[in-house]
């Protein structure tokens, strides 16, 4: 499904990594490991198509991702360091607009169910501005759930979450993988994916 071939990444004249490659199929997860500044985020941005690698190519269903912008955009969901949440909108509006921008139809019941699942049922009508950092992260995760994407690319999804939240993300990822989805995750915290054996990729050693 997703193939990365001989990727190299440069940041400010410095080579972060080279000859990096992997293959990921249905029902597989990839944990990206590496210390600070080793290029984990750069790798994830290359994989989702926001940056262009110095060399190499990323393929989705056999096609380079810059050639299949439309299909890849539909099947891939990305959560970066920033949550992608508008502070002036309520969680509900955020989900609805994100869905509309992706060309999906999202009914209120589904959005509500997702927000309940991430534990935000009491905050649906509040502007995201008044939510805490962790709660905003949960809005982004609710968006991920409603996106129905096949490939998840998550950059430090556990940042700012409490113990319960971490368990929730672990459960989400497990369900997604078991249902045949793909996930690429970076994290500094231990991520317990019981019953699954994720592939491990070390960056910049």
């Amino acid at each position, binding site marked *: 499904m997703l193939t990365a071939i001989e990727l190299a990444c440069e940041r400010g004249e410095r080579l972060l990594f080279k000859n990096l490659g992997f293959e990921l199929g249905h029902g597989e997860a990839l944990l990206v490991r590496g210390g600070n500044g080793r290029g984990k985020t750069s790798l994830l941005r290359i994989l989702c198509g*926001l940056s262009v690698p110095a060399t190499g190519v990323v393929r989705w269903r056999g096609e380079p991702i810059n050639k299949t912008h439309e299909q890849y955009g539909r099947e891939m969901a990305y959560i970066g360091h920033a*949550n*992608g*949440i*508008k502070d*002036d*909108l309520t969680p509900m*509006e955020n989900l609805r607009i994100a869905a509309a*921008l992706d060309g999906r139809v999202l009914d209120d019941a589904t959005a509500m169910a997702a927000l309940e699942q991430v534990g935000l049922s009491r905050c649906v009508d509040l502007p995201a501005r008044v939510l805490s950092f962790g709660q905003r992260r949960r809005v982004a995760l609710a968006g991920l759930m409603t996106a129905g994407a096949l490939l998840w690319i998550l950059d430090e999804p556990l940042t700012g979450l409490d113990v319960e939240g971490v368990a929730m993300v672990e459960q989400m990822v497990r369900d997604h993988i078991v249902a045949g989805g793909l996930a690429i995750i970076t994290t500094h915290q231990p991520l317990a994916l019981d019953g699954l054996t994720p592939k491990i990729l070390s960056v910049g050693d």
Partner: protein
Amino acid sequence: MLKFLFTVIRRDVLLAARRRGDWLTAQFFFVMVVSLFPLGIGPEPGMLRTIGPGVVWVAALLASLLSMERLFADDYRDGTLEQMLLSPYPNSLLTLGKAIAHWIINGIPLLLIAPVLGIQFNLPAEALWILVLSLAIGTPILSLLGSIGAALTLGLRGGGALITLLILPLYVPALIFGAGAVEGVLSGTGSEAHLSLLGAFLMMSLLLAPWVSAMALKVSVE
């Protein structure tokens, strides 16, 4: 495709409605700058009538630039810009939508205020109509070209000053034909030629600006 465009526009207009303070700043700026000229130059009807069209147009350019810096910057900061770039639609549609939303939020109010300000300059009714018409054709150009500058300077420190330097030269044709149309009415030579050229300039910006802006955005986000 068209639905995506409308969603982008609706989203930006909704966000502007939630932050009315930001939105009003540019309009007040426009009113203040234009009103300062009659006060500073003195109440001489002939002189005011001569400079009127130019002053209103220059103030419109500056007011448009004032709000331009934040066209992409807010979305960039909270990560929504990345999400929109990853949506399954062409990025030029996103920049086009943002430019149209900028025009609806900042351009249309200028059109409504301009005739009132024109009266301060002793402009006759006919010239006021042409002023509004020239701004109606011209302000979308300002939003479209400005989006290129906003995309190029995204994430740079002091981006606001840089946009001004980059984009003001591009605004010059719009200023010349826009103010020229009103002066044409005043001097009796007619405004059709100027308005046609302004219209041609609008078509050209409509075709090229979203595309250039999308390319610049990709480079800036990386």
